[in-house]
C-alpha cells in the first residue's frame, strides 16, 4: 500500500458529532474536544482529504459532519501528522504528539465545517 507524504497544504478531515452531543457551539465555533485524544493516548485519527470523499469520511451524516484543517496548523502546534492507511480506509492518517489544551483549541479554531454537498475533486 503506497504511503503518501502529507504536505503542509494538504487538508485533514475529522468527523464531529452534531446530534447528541453537538460539537458545534451556539456561535458556530467547534469545541476543542473535537481534537482531543482519549486520556492516556497521544494520537487522533483523521482522513487525508485528497484520498477520500465526503460520503466515505462522514460515515453517517445524520450523526456527524466533517471539519477540515490544513496539516500546517497541526505542525504549528508541535504535533505530527502522517498517512497511516487501514485495510478499510486508505485515507486514514494520524495526528500524534503532546496534545496540550492550547493545541486542541488552536486546531478547533482553525478548522472549517464542510458542507455535505461539497465535491472534494474541485
Amino acid at each position, binding site marked *: 500500500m503506497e504511503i503518501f507524504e502529507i504536505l503542509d497544504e494538504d487538508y485533514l478531515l475529522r468527523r464531529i458529532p452534531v446530534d447528541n*452531543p453537538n460539537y458545534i457551539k451556539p456561535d458556530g465555533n467547534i469545541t476543542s474536544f473535537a481534537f482531543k*485524544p482519549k486520556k492516556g493516548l497521544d494520537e487522533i*485519527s483523521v482522513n487525508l482529504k485528497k484520498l477520500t470523499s465526503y460520503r466515505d469520511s462522514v460515515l453517517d451524516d445524520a450523526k456527524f459532519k466533517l471539519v477540515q484543517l490544513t496539516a500546517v496548523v497541526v505542525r504549528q502546534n508541535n504535533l505530527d501528522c502522517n498517512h497511516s492507511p487501514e485495510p478499510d480506509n486508505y485515507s486514514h492518517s494520524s495526528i500524534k504528539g503532546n496534545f496540550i*489544551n492550547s493545541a486542541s483549541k488552536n486546531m478547533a479554531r482553525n478548522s472549517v465545517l464542510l458542507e455535505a454537498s461539497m465535491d472534494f475533486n474541485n
Partner: protein
Amino acid sequence: MKLPKKISPFPKNSNTPNKDISSKIRIINQLNDFALLEENWDSYGALRISENVIEKAISVVKNLYLKNIFIYYTAPSPSGDILLELKNKNKTIEIEISPESDITYTAFKNGDEIKAGIWIQDNEELINWFIE
C-alpha cells in the same frame, strides 16, 4: 378574519425567571441525554458517560443557576468527561468534570488563559471576576 395573537413563552425581558428556568431545564436535559450515548458515540472509540459524572455536572449547573449564571454550552469528551462552558462578554470559564478526579476550571479573557484550578462551588472571587 383576525388571527389570534401569538403568545411568546418568554416575557419581553430576557432576564426573567421563566427564561432562566427554560435554559436550566434545557441544559439538564442535555446532560441526561449524555447517559444515552453508547461506547464509540464519536466513531473514534469515545467512552460512555457515567451517571456519576452526569450527576456531578447537574449539581454544578443547579448551583450556578442559583447565582443567576447560565451555562452557555455543554459537551462530553471522548474520555467520558463533561465540559460546562460559561460565557460573559469576553470572559469564558470552562468547567471540566471527570469520572475519577476533582472538578477543574480554566478561565479565559479574550481567549487567553487567566487562571485555572480546582472548581469550588462558592469561589466568590472567580464568580465576581466573571460577572463584573
